[in-house]
């Protein structure tokens, strides 16, 4: 039983990371109707920036952390304005291909600038842990969950209580009507990219201490995040977080109690869960069935 709770805690920490990247995916999808394949690589790239700030430029952790979030936000907006916006009138296929091109470029650039070798990335949280009823809760896991929840809270407050948040929701719901009412929808898309990049950078910086920093570190995490988003229902922000936690716990439990499932099979299992969800409940846990019209 003790082992069970131990795995539950570890699963929640993994799940929080999946959840935060899933949230970024859902956010950009709600705002733009485009899936950004470069989401994971943007997170990886900004994590490298944070690493460079700390190791080469003498920053301490938290200033580097917040500076990276700002850089990520500006970078996300800039990418949307320079790379994606010229394709505004192009087909979805073309836009998706452009984000794939970004994925490739960012992945290559990171290896080029910082070399593809594993780098150690510091964690802001101590390595010690609390012991509650025999269950070790590492401060790092608790910190990861806390940071993720804080991000979700900030985003929710932003979308719920600010005028800009309202405009973004309006722009996503009905772009034409929003534009007629004076909302500058094109810039809102750029803002959406900025927020997603900032959120992605947080998940990158949270995941890097455990998986180590490499140009490919976010590829698997992106898949887990996507599986989490599908599990929760692709258009629901709450679903993204709940889906992330559920997936994290599920993978850890399977890894502990079902012996044929070794670490190599984590990703195939996540893919399997994804496909089963699609067969059984395509709209996800929190999703609504969307009626499409011509």
């Amino acid at each position, binding site marked *: 039983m003790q082992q069970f709770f131990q795995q539950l805690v570890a699963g929640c920490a993994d799940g929080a990371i999946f959840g935060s990247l899933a949230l970024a995916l859902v956010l950009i999808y709600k705002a733009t109707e*485009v*899936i950004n*394949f470069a989401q994971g690589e943007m997170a990886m790239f900004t994590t490298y920036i944070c690493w460079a700030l700390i190791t080469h430029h003498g920053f301490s952790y938290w200033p580097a952390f917040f500076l990276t979030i700002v850089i990520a936000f500006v970078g996300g907006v800039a990418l949307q304005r320079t*790379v994606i916006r*010229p*394709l505004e009138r*192009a*087909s*979805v*296929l*073309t836009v*998706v*291909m*452009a984000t*794939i*091109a*970004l*994925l*490739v*470029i960012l*992945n*290559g*650039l*990171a*290896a*080029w600038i910082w*070399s*593809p070798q594993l780098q150690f990335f510091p964690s802001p949280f101590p390595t010690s842990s609390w012991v509650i009823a025999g269950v070790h809760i590492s401060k790092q896991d608790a910190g990861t969950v806390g940071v993720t929840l804080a991000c979700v809270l900030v985003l929710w407050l932003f979308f719920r209580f600010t005028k800009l948040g309202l405009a973004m929701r309006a722009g996503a719901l009905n772009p034409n009507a929003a534009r007629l009412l004076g909302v500058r929808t094109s810039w809102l898309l750029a803002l959406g990219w900025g927020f997603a990049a900032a959120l992605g950078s947080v998940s990158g910086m949270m995941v890097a201490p455990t998986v180590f920093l490499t*140009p490919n570190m976010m*590829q*698997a995490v*992106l*898949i887990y995040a*996507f*599986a989490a988003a*599908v599990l929760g229902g*692709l258009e629901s922000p709450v679903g993204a977080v709940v889906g992330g936690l559920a997936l994290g716990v599920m993978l850890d439990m399977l890894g502990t109690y079902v012996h044929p499932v*070794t670490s*190599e*099979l*984590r*990703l*195939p299992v*996540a*893919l399997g869960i*994804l*496909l*089963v969800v*699609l*067969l059984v409940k*395509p709209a996800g846990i929190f999703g609504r069935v969307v009626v*499409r*019209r*011509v």
Partner: protein
Amino acid sequence: MTRLTRIGGPAGFVVLVAAVLLAPLVFSHYRTYQLAFVAVYLIALVGLNILTGYTGQISLGHGAFMGVGAYTTTILVVDHGWRDLWTIPVAGVVAGLIGLAFGLPATRFAGPYLALATFAIPLSFIGILKRFPHFTGGNIGKSLPQLHAELGVQANPSLWFYAVTWTVALVMFPLAYLVVRGRFGRSLRAVRDSEIASTANGVSTAAVKAAAFGVSAFFCGVAGALYAIGITYVNPDTFPIDLSILLLVGIVLGGAGSLGGMLFGALFVEFIRISWGPALLGVFSSVHHINKNAPGSGLVVYGVVLLLVLYAAPSGAAGLARRATGAATRFRRGKDASLSDPSLV
């Protein structure tokens, strides 16, 4: 369809066959060996194009279906003593069935979500290979016997490999043409152009997409079998996610929805790695101090090439050719009929 497109297909095919027959006379054995891989990529691209170009579904996982084909061939040859040629159709069928099994649930996704789900295939494939080492050879992989001529033919191995790959390619190419031409091809394009409208007209979009997924995986499986025979070893690093992305770049460059354009795409995929990429970087490095052999530089090159093509010529090489022939036709008959026809070969 204009008259031009009707005769354009077969005529173009005859020219291709002639070029294939003449090439080994002109080029060295090393170049011939490289050109054999152009045939391998051509098969994979033509297959992926059925899914991406004609059905409008992006896949980031078809490199892994090449991997399934390659491993099928390797395991049959090494562990069961098959002759490598006979494994090619088996590899295609195995990859096709796995593709269909994945496609049935996954094609419930609309548009870009399918692409994201397929992103998991190459990553999962590598994990599965490492998990069952007694079957797949694990991290080390497996080696095939050295490339050699078979069926009693005395020939240079490169030349033999060239003959095999292009024979298969020249069979698969018309096969793809038959797939995209008839009633099935029409429903593929209907799904691409409007899922809702095609459903309303009695096309089962899920079934059509899943079938397209299976067919394209079959093509990639065949290509993978040839690939394994050519490079004579397979391991988990042979089929990375980069390969899947490179295939997609080839499609966009050749022109999604054009079979003939895939020839250009295949040439690009084979030669960007070994000569064009470094040459492009060389242009930059003369201006700036850039290390041509730096890790990741190759990826940056094809990412940038992909972006430039998306801006400058979104319909790829085939689109440019079509624009040229369209202009010629317009000039001759005073109207423009061939521009909107995606089945132009």
